[in-house]
């Protein structure tokens, strides 16, 4: 019966036009896909070829050298690598806690539906604010606020200026939308029947959220954090304005620091010769750090997925 039905409606050979357009579509999407990969390779080659003289000159010692002295052609990016990772990790520590909390509040029926939507959109709007505006806000609002806050703890105001702390705080707000949006999607997609089962067993709302919803959504939440980490690593302008751009290697939150992206933004316009090459080398390093973070993230995600599947079996 169903066989009859199909023959009547669908079972006719595709026309020549349909075959052609189908082929054309397949090849063009394939072409675009390849073009994206080709573009990435072209960028890598271009940066790599410009970085080559510096790679030859400094080798891997570039990664461990603390000096950046264009006048003596002595270049190393250890403080910048440290600053990039340190500021991003600090920002993530803050943003993960807040992002996850926000994601829970706007997805677990704590608020009326319309208010959830409003909050969600407001947080997503944070992503639309230009980086330079965040930088200015940091200079004119965050730093003075920190100054009066830390004065309570006996830190003299003149010791508080552009440094790791305001940079990491502003960075945390910048990556908040990424964490919230992706983590919320993961939480929302937890099957309703799991929650109903938990309630059926007599779980309270919080027991349900902490014991069932979050563990089930853990993979997606982790994905959100990895995405935010990637965004934090490459963030440039706001950090260049707030971090102090000083090549210091320190755990001190009030000490100025530097990041790879800020170094590039600051130095490219007036760079030439070996300095330009060293900057390209730094760009290659930044690319590889971002790549490594994403690969490690994917590997952990795969593991988490496997565990989750194992749990279901």
């Amino acid at each position: 019966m169903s066989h009859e039905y199909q023959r009547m409606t669908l079972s006719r050979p595709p026309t020549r036009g349909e075959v052609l357009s189908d082929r054309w579509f397949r090849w063009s999407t394939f072409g675009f896909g390849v073009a994206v990969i080709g573009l990435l390779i072209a960028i890598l080659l271009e940066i790599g070829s410009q970085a080559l003289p510096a790679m030859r000159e400094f080798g891997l010692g570039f990664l461990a050298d603390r000096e950046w002295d264009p006048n003596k052609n002595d270049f190393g990016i250890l403080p910048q690598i440290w600053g990039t990772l340190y500021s991003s990790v600090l920002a993530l520590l803050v943003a993960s806690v807040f992002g996850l909390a926000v994601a829970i509040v706007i997805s677990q029926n704590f608020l009326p539906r319309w208010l959830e939507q409003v909050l969600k959109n407001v947080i997503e709007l944070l992503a639309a604010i230009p980086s330079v505006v965040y930088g200015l806000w940091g200079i004119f609002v965050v730093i003075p606020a920190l100054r009066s806050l830390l004065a309570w703890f006996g830190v003299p105001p003149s010791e508080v200026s552009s440094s790791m702390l305001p940079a990491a705080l502003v960075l945390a707000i910048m990556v908040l939308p990424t964490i919230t949006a992706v983590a919320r999607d993961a939480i929302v997609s937890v099957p309703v029947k799991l929650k109903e089962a938990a309630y059926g067993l007599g779980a309270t709302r919080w027991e349900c959220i902490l014991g069932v919803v979050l563990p089930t959504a853990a993979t997606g939440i982790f994905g959100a954090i990895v995405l935010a980490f990637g965004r934090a690593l490459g963030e440039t302008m706001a950090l260049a304005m707030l971090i102090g751009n000083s090549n210091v290697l320190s755990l001190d939150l009030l000490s100025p620091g530097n990041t790879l992206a800020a170094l590039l933004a600051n130095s490219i316009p007036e760079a030439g010769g070996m300095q330009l090459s060293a900057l390209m080398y730094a760009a290659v390093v930044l690319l590889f750090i971002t790549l490594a973070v994403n690969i490690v993230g994917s590997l952990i995600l795969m593991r988490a997925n496997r565990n989750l599947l194992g749990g279901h079996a």
Partner: protein
Amino acid sequence: MMSLRRSLFVLVAAPAFLLVACSGSNAAASGELSGSLSGTGASFPAPLYQAWFKMYHDEVNSGIKVNYDSQGSSKGVRAVIAGTHDFGASDAAMKDSELAEVDPQRGMLMLPMTAGAVVVAHNTDIQDLKLDRATLADIFLGKISRWNDPAIAATNAGTTLPNAKITVVRRSDGSGTTYAFTNHLSAISSEWQSKHGVSKSVNWFDGALGAKGNEGVTAGISQNKYSLGYVEFSYADKNNLQTAALQNKAGKFVKPTIASFQSALAGDPLPANMRLFVPDPAGDASFPIVTYTWILAYKNYDDANKVAILKDVLNWCLTEGQKHSEGQGYVPLPTTVTDKVRAAVNTIKVTANG
């Protein structure tokens, strides 16, 4: 209406051009010239250049458009070497090695267009702060880190100095301002010279805050109590930052004023290639940190129209334009200098074979 106003302008302006442009051949036709030029380079004089080119377009000849892209001195130098723009601009002129890279058929002229000063600004309640030469260098070397250091007290007798850390603010990006500043520090401190030298960006001591652009340093100083940094004069002036009087070569403490900058530039005559740095000017009234800034033009162009436009525009900048320098925070060049530069401008010619 517009054309009436424009023709009035031409009527008024044309005789001035006859006087101005010595070569004369195209000057009389300045009202008929039209076309555009593109230049790129130094950001230090960019506000003045852009104001000049706009004024020239609005008031002298609306048929001529000069685009100036403020990309930094190094870009300006590379642009004229690669031949991508009609002219470049640089705060550090060009090194001999860079001049050697320019197409020898085209040649290169380094034309001082204006001068600026780098001042030391601070955010404290100290009125009339005076810094002697050793103290200035030691602060930027990170050796003097507190305001009530005896070295600062020595030149500021009778002033109560705050017991606070000096937050040094400096440029994080490469810049002509840093070049001029380090050029002076190298002249007055052998330690600075051996440790850092003269450069558009140097390896500052740990803890010196880096800020991007003159505007970034200005914001850094005004936002941080007890900070101190170096900025181009106009930024300190427009933002009402307190500035320090610096000790010059003659041992006198001099406040930054247009007059003290002009005095500093009056000392040394320009050499034939017009590349002159005055890292430590002589004269009792001279402010110690001043610098020329250059437009880099070719000696030969293959386009006659471009040559005519370039000569006309540069001559205007060197005469009428100089009157507007001070309002923008730059130093008007003395006529002894502009005469020499204009003579060089008027040697620009069209390549015979095109």
